[in-house]
């Protein structure tokens, strides 16, 4: 999903860079007022951790493989603003060190994977885990949030490509989003299991943010508002113009009436697949959107059921650590409040 240079036009570059700067600036400001300095090394290490975790590939389908994005993982572990900063640092270093993702496309990449993914994922996670109070609820919430963050980031990515005139929405949207609906399943599985294993090993770290009802972790509403409106603005700009004419109605009418608007822009070199001759291409995005909605509902239900089955017992897990003879009473030092 890392967009290389050359795929975006100037207006997209400027818009996405502006959004990313606002988002990062907001995150830095939130952290400046609320963060203890001990969190800085933790975030640096978290960035290195995400970089390494992203190098692990998992198979998706038919020989293709995806890798972890980690945005929801880091947002749930450290908090949304920290998530934005960690993901941005990861993307910047990947860009300048590994040439993964373009320099001018950095704004777009940070917006998709460093702002949309953690913020949307974190809000969904908070929403669902606040709604289902039972213990399995937070696992289901994490799974669903991880899946949605991946899909949403890919939708934004396609929107930016389409806005730049690089890829047609009617083809790019089904292709990219379709693949990422599958990659998202891997993301959901790994994110949930990783959080479960961290919670099991070190419940004192309180890996699930805001699960303890701790008032100190509650963020002021303004931060949420700004991230939320940034997200909405991005979606409105990149996705809505294309989504609103999904059935390609206008173009179809124009074609049937006989004035093919595209005829003037007909290139010297003909495209190998003339788009209007591909049957059913107009309904493909609609089908994908439908599949996305159905998929989202399905993923939500499945993650609820699976979380209920898999994590039924985990509620007693931390308190079960009782002292028994021949065993050290506390395997690790007691809570040092690493995360606040």
């Amino acid at each position, binding site marked *: 999903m890392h967009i290389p240079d050359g795929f975006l036009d100037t207006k997209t570059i400027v818009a996405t860079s502006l959004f990313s700067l606002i988002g990062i600036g907001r995150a830095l400001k939130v952290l400046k007022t609320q963060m203890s300095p001990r969190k800085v090394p933790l975030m640096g290490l978290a960035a290195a*951790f995400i970089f390494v975790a992203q190098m692990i590939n998992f198979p998706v389908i038919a020989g293709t493989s995806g890798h972890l994005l980690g945005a929801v993982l880091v947002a749930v572990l450290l908090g949304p603003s920290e998530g934005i900063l960690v993901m941005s640092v990861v993307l910047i270093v990947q860009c300048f060190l590994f040439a993964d993702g373009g320099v001018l496309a950095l704004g777009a990449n940070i917006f998709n994977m460093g702002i949309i993914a953690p913020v949307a994922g974190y809000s969904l996670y908070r929403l669902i885990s606040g709604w289902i109070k039972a213990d399995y609820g937070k696992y289901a919430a994490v799974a669903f949030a991880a899946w949605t963050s991946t899909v949403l980031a890919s939708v934004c990515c396609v929107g930016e490509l389409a806005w730049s005139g690089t890829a047609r929405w009617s083809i790019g949207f089904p292709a990219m989003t379709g693949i990422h609906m599958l990659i998202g399943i891997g993301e959901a599985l*790994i994110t949930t299991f990783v959080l479960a294993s961290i919670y099991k090993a070190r419940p004192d770290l309180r890996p699930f943010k805001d699960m303890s009802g701790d008032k100190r972790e509650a963020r002021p509403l303004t931060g949420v508002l700004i991230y939320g409106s940034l997200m909405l603005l991005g979606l409105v700009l990149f996705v809505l113009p294309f989504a609103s004419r999904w059935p390609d109605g206008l173009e179809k009418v124009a074609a049937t009436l006989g004035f093919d608007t595209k005829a003037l822009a007909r290139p010297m070199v003909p495209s190998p697949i003339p788009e209007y001759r591909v049957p059913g291409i107009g309904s493909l995005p609609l089908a994908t959107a439908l599949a996305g909605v159905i998929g989202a509902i399905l993923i939500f239900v499945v993650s609820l059921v699976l979380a209920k089955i898999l994590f039924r017992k985990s509620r007693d897990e931390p308190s079960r650590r009782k002292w028994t003879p021949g065993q050290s009473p506390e395997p690790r030092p007691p809570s040092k409040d690493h995360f606040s």
Partner: protein
Amino acid sequence: MRHDFLDRYSRIDSPIHRLPAALKMGLALGAIFIIVLPPITALYPFLFTAVVLLGAIALSRIPLSFMVRRILIFEPFIVAVAVLALLQPGGFLKFSTIVVKSTLSLVTIIVLSNTTPFTELLGVFRRLHTPPVFLTMMALMYRYVFVLVDEMQRMKRARLSRTFKNKKENARSWRSLSMMIGQLFLRSTERAERIFAAMSARGWKS
């Protein structure tokens, strides 16, 4: 173990390596602007930057095989996304320009990151008034990526030496992979604690 896969040749010596980092950074950014911004039909900017880049590669003593391998890592993705451009009016022209533009930009960054140590790039970022929290995070990330890769490989080896290799992908292997990632996170946080203590002991303030 050697984990210099990221910027393997950034610390060798050549006329290009000896140039100041800020100059190289500026030139690279300029080159990318020249590559990305002109319209599709402009040919000379691409030719010009391609010649300059080839010259830089020749002068910098980065082995060509390394360059090619590094390009081949990302080229499939570029082509895969560019194929989307193929399926629209004017597709072929668009497709070829995108591939050319992306590849040239890719080469520019590979040359930059393999002729300039990352710490010097960080120095340039600092002079550009990047927020200090950001700089500290980037520096720590660069410092510890290699350590964490080592850690991950140690865990993988330990796991392989203790278990049978699971051929089939099933829930259990997803879970054990996740446990490894979770363990890596725990080790990272513990390391971060130690680093914070060491940094504070040396008078660090955020």
